[in-house]
């Protein structure tokens, strides 16, 4: 199904080469090719590499399940938490995962509203990543409490005791913020999937596939009416999700900013956290997609230009985060509160200096390499840097949470946190869960929005020399 360039019906001069934007789908791939390539990932026999990735991921996930079972049946003490460090890896990982979960909605909603067409190649995978990351994140607040089985007390359920949750607590806000974010992200993702599920249904060769894709495709038949409703709904949901991108991480940052510990009690936290979240979200998107585009041979859809653009976002947000780090120190100095100043001095030079400098180098120094085009376009470099960003952002949360708690007001009460094996394996277990879910996703659902990508191919543009609705043409 290749479209050989045909002579144009309407004679429009192609723009000069230097003005021409790099097309979002490279190599003038036809619409049919796009469908085949993307849907093809989910069809046929699962490739070996997929099994090689899935099995360890799933085993890791099982280890995580075991750790959580051990934790709940034994006590939170199996983690390395102590007095004064009552939160450490649990909340670090929570915030880390939530932050990762940021890119999806940002890409799908904000970039959509901003008419950034390049989003179409990455939004589906990013949204899936968001959902899975939020699932991992949501696990932590639930299991880190002392009495998990009573976690539902955080929900505002009318009960005979007449006791309500305490709405002044940022943890309570978290419950609403995270659950709303998850719900909206899931809906948004699923709605975007519907036309593609229909594609999958139509391509299905077995009855089971046909049935299952069919059920979830909700009877989509590519009618104009469907498309028109779909587009409206998509726009509305994008509008709804946009504030959530800002709110969810702002509220997570309130867990710290609303408290009064030196190092937590800072008004810069909401924007700083949102920037950090976008930063880490893009880091994770790159980590996932850079190898996948090669493995699944999607280089023409997720082009170097896509990667380049995402690197630029990463660079921008990383720099914002760097500014926030600097500003925290400035305020600690300028604010004149000796406890705050001590806390920041301790961060940079105290017993956790290594964590602080790991954070600075990973989040501020290394991303500066993205100023150079070579680093933005060299896939290996991008992959390595994106991993560094992920590590850096983990350290950021760790530095904020654990090192702040390790030393605050009362010197008699200073402590140190050492993770136990359960801490470590629970964390790795959530990675296993994330990877398992993501691998299942990419194997069974189109990981790129087929219909949307087609909409941004050069030939979909009626003004493009190659594009336009033509008699006999098809999607």
């Amino acid at each position, binding site marked *: 199904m290749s479209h050989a360039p045909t002579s144009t019906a309407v004679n429009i001069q192609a723009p000069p080469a230097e003005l021409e934007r790099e097309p979002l789908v490279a190599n003038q791939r036809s619409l049919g090719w796009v469908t085949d390539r993307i849907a093809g990932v989910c069809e046929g026999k699962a490739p070996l590499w997929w099994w090689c990735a899935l099995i360890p991921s799933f085993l890791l996930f099982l280890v995580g399940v075991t750790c959580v079972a051990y934790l709940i049946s*034994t006590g939170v003490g199996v983690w390395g938490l102590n007095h004064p460090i009552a*939160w450490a890896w649990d909340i670090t990982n929570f915030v880390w995962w939530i932050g990762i979960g940021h890119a999806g909605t940002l890409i799908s909603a904000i970039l959509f509203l901003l008419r950034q067409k390049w989003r179409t190649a990455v939004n589906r995978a990013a949204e899936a990543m968001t959902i899975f990351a939020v699932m991992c994140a949501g696990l932590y607040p639930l299991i880190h*409490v002392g009495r998990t089985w009573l976690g539902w007390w955080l929900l505002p359920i009318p009960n005979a005791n007449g*006791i309500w949750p305490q709405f002044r607590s940022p*943890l309570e806000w978290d419950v609403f913020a995270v659950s709303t974010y998850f719900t909206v992200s899931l809906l948004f993702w699923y709605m975007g999937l519907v036309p593609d599920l229909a594609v999958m249904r139509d391509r299905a060769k077995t009855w089971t596939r046909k049935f299952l894709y069919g059920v979830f495709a909700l009877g989509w038949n590519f009618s104009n009416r469907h498309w028109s409703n779909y587009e409206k709904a998509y726009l509305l949901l994008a509008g709804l999700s946009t504030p959530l991108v800002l709110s969810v991480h702002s509220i997570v940052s309130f867990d710290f900013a609303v408290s009064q510990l030196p190092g937590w009690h800072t008004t810069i936290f909401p924007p700083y956290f949102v920037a950090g979240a976008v930063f880490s979200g893009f880091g994770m998107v790159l980590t996932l997609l850079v190898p996948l585009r090669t493995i699944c041979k999607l280089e023409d859809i997720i082009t170097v230009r896509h990667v380049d653009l995402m690197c630029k976002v990463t660079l921008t947000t990383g720099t914002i985060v760097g500014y926030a780090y600097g500003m925290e120190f400035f305020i600690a100095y300028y604010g004149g509160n000796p406890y705050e100043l*001590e806390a920041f001095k301790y961060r940079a030079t105290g017993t956790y200096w290594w964590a602080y400098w790991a954070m600075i180098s990973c989040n501020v120094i290394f991303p500066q390499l993205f100023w150079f085009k070579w680093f933005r376009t060299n896939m290996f470099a991008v992959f390595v840097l994106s991993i560094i960003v992920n590590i850096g952002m983990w350290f950021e949360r760790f530095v904020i949470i654990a090192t702040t708690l390790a030393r605050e007001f*009362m010197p008699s009460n200073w402590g140190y946190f050492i993770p136990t094996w359960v801490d470590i394996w629970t964390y790795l277990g959530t990675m296993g869960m994330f990877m398992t879910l993501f691998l299942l996703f990419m194997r069974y659902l189109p990981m790129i929005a087929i219909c949307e990508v087609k909409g941004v191919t050069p030939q979909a543009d009626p003004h493009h020399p190659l594009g336009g609705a033509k008699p006999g043409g098809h999607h």
Partner: protein
Amino acid sequence: MKTVPPTCPEPQTGPQYWRSLDQLADTPEFREWLEKEFPHGAAELADAPNRRQFVKIMSASFLLAGLGLTGCRRPEEKIMPFGRAVPGYVHGVPQYYATAMPARRSAIPLVVRSHDGRPTKIEGNPQHPASNGSTDQFAQASILNLYDPDRATQFKKDGKRASREDVATGLGELAAAARANGGTGLAFLLERGGSPSRDRVIAEVKKALPNARWFVHEPVDFDIHREAATLAFGKPVAPVFHYDKAKVIVSLDCDFIGGEEETYINVRRYAQGRRVTGPNSSMSRLYAVEALFTLTGANADHRLRVAPSAVLNVAAQLAAKVLGRGQTASLVSSLGSLTGAKVADEKWISECANDLLDEHHHGNVLVVAGHRQPLAVHLLAHAMNVALGAVGKTVTFQTLEADGFGKIQDLAAQLDSGSVETLVLVGGNPAYTAPADVNWAQAAAKAKNTVRLGYYEDESFNAKGWHLPQAHFLESWGDARTADGTLVPVQPLIAPLFDAMTELELLARIGGLAKTNPHDIVRETFNGLAGSEENAWRKFLHDGFLAGSAAPAVNATFDTAAVARVLGAAQAAPSAAGSLEVVFHRSYAMDDGRFNNNGWLQETPDPITKLVWDNAVLVSPATAEKLGLGKLGSSKTRDTYKDATGGSNMTPEAKKGQFHNQVVKVTVGGRSVTGPVWIVPGMADNVAGLALGYGREKTGRVGTAQKGGPVGFNAYKLRTSQHPHFAGGATISATGQTHQLASTQEHGVMEGRPIVREANLEQYRKHPDFAKNMDLDSPGHTAHIDMDPAKPGLPKRIYKAPPLTGLHQWGMTIDLTACVGCTACQVACQSENNIPIVGHEQVTKGREMSWMRLDRYFAGDVNNPQVAFQPMLCQHCENAPCESVCPVNATVHDEEGLNLMAYNRCVGTRYCSNNCPYKVRRFNYFDYNRRPLSDLYKSAIDPRNETNGQWEFWRWFKDPSTGSKPKDEWDLMHLAKNPNVSVRMRGVMEKCTFCLQRIEEAKIAQKVKAGPSDDVRVPDGAIKTACQQACPAEAIVFGDISDPDSRVSQMKKLERNYTVLGYLDTRTRNTYLARIRNPNPKMPDYLETTAVQDEYYRKSGSSPFEPHGGHGPAKASAAADHGKGGH
């Protein structure tokens, strides 16, 4: 969220009510009323005693008991199983009985609370003339020994269980045999005791068995005080030291605040002599000469560190300056060789002497010598007291009954020679505590018969012969004399839980005495002392002491010649340069080892080192450096005042917050022990301190380390009869191993933060409000924040505050000048509030559960630092940071200003703990109450996890209310709990409640008393929190701050009153009174500004003694413009 109060008990106005019954019983009005109300009752009243009347009398006596602090105990024979309820008993209302805890030569008068027939809390007897109701930490913890599952529970003969009848028969045969030969071959080894009944029984047994031999072994013996006084004053006398009356106190290695006997009285008296109520108050001054860093040294205004052997030289040099006049002048010549070597700063000694000689406080001075010091030091102290006119003022004397017991080494020699056939061990644990040069085990094995009365089947447990479990003092009848000589009863609150016998019974049985029942023996003694009137006996038991039985002070004449003789014979310490000395000291937690299996004490931090669950080889930083044993940790992020403390955090270097310290081998005289090193700033150089009481080889589950082997190391192995207290010529060598130590405080300095605020007395007089000047700017000083209309001077709150409209508004003050850091409060809190212990491993993770901690901060010179103690507990903030962050409303405020914790509602997010600036909330990381400490990490769902014979998960499924602790432990643990305080499960946050249960109890009682009237305000002083009750220094004051006349309100009005971290606008209900020190400006180690203050000054750049930014409304206008430059 009010709970329905339990059925109200009979009003606590009992005495009046029942008194009127007695009084009114025969008045016509009463009869008329009774006829109307209870025609039958009236008829019966006239009759002879019958059942109904019996019931009435019984309930009357119970009400008297319920009055609190009182109790008439029926004789032991009538103790009924609780299943048969006592008439008039009201469930849930505790009874209080007076008793006493026997100590070495005395006793601590107590009032013990009993719930449903089981003792649950020990408190001091406030009516006792020599006690203010306070106790020491040992008394507080002794109740746990009662419920120790590892105590000996069975009478045993040759290792096999024997019945009580067998014991009676067996001891009867023994007695008959002994009578036949007058006690030849019979030897008794006793502990020291202060019981008149015991003395009487021993005298009778001696009469019956004249050939029996008597010995006493007390591993930590304070008898040298009496020995020295007897020698110095030529007749058997015991000295009584009045620290309250002294203006200048010099302690010659005498840890009278922590390690000596009667510390609870000493602390109280000492604190009285230093109570500061305003700038005009006067304070005593304490000089301490010591080797270890003891509590006394920590409280001293001037401290001289010298090797223990050099204390004699210092004492002699001091004496040489002091003994210039009167009858002691002649002694100066006999000091010759003693003053010899120059071991310490002469200026220190001479200025100290000048202070003693200062005419301003003539006679009101006191020199005391510690029990570790040889006789010569004690005699010098007495001589100085005589020379300074202190005798009769700060030192008085009581007559002493000479006892004439032999020593354990003599007994061992006699055993070895085979002249002892029957060995009777009454208490004690000689196999563990005997001097190392006495091979006790071998000697004891030579006796043909052994009878041992012991609380545990411990090292001294002998598989052959009789082993008789000793009754706990709460199960025994006995008596004692307290330090002032007052007679106190030891009466049982509970029938022995297991097979048990008292010392009195054993001695009486072996002596073949007619009366062997301890109750009868005690009664007979009492009859002899106070007459046989029944009422006197009842009052004695009820009050807990015999009024007016205190020993009168006797005049004593100083025997110069005798003292000169001893001093002449005393040798100056050999040149100590370079020689390493070891000091064996009584542990602040284990005593001499008798509390080794007591979890509360194992987990009570040593006041200085903050170590728990271990003893260590204590060395000074310089010595550690010299021997290469590690160094003190550095305090990072501190650059502005590095010169103040050398950048040290004053605790040994920690790796990742953990203390993996070097294990060293300490060798003295060919004997050696190994133990971990702990560096203590302020120790004398070339000295190693070894706490006794650890390293028990045969002890219970608590005294056994989690990974097997004993907790700590056994310092007795180095202790010989020649050098029982300190020994020179020791060597320390590294073994290359490390041992992890658990310390509850990893950071030892305050980093210049104004947490404990201090000033010298002179500074305080000039600037009484210095403590408030150290406050940081609070939001209240910020112009853009709206002011709270309800609270002038404070900013408006963000959230709607709970209305503080209750009738009472609870508050507390802690006087840091009074607090000596003794830890009694901490143990009291643990006992009152059912606080679990968590074990060594959990403490290394910082998970100890204590609701109250005693923060200990060092400041100043690493080699001779000053120490500040601060009891830290929930501050009950009105504007509580914990409350606003709890997502489930588990921690809330009540209208009386208490920060409440609803355990049932807590899900355990721990956010409250994170947001608490004082870090006083404690989280149950594991099910500490239900699971054995060794099983904390074992998952309940692991099928291999068979605790208590069954799979934990299955156990839980069948009955979630049980635990997986071994059954004996579980059953006894239940008995020990205070039923008025919830026992918390895992996953729940807990913290100090200001003893809410006591508050409610008092409020209910007051409401009942008030009846229809409005008089429901609890009178001031009616509620004492557990910590306050135990505090010997009376540093803690609790009460109603809405009553301007209450004591706590008075305290809060003092200028020294301040809030820790008040700038956070927490509005704490607990405030502190700044610490005042009283150094002598002429001393070489005088610091014009206290080290803590100096650190603050260097850090903040502002002095609290200069006007700079006002806080009080009075200063605000003028000084506010200055700002707070340094902050």
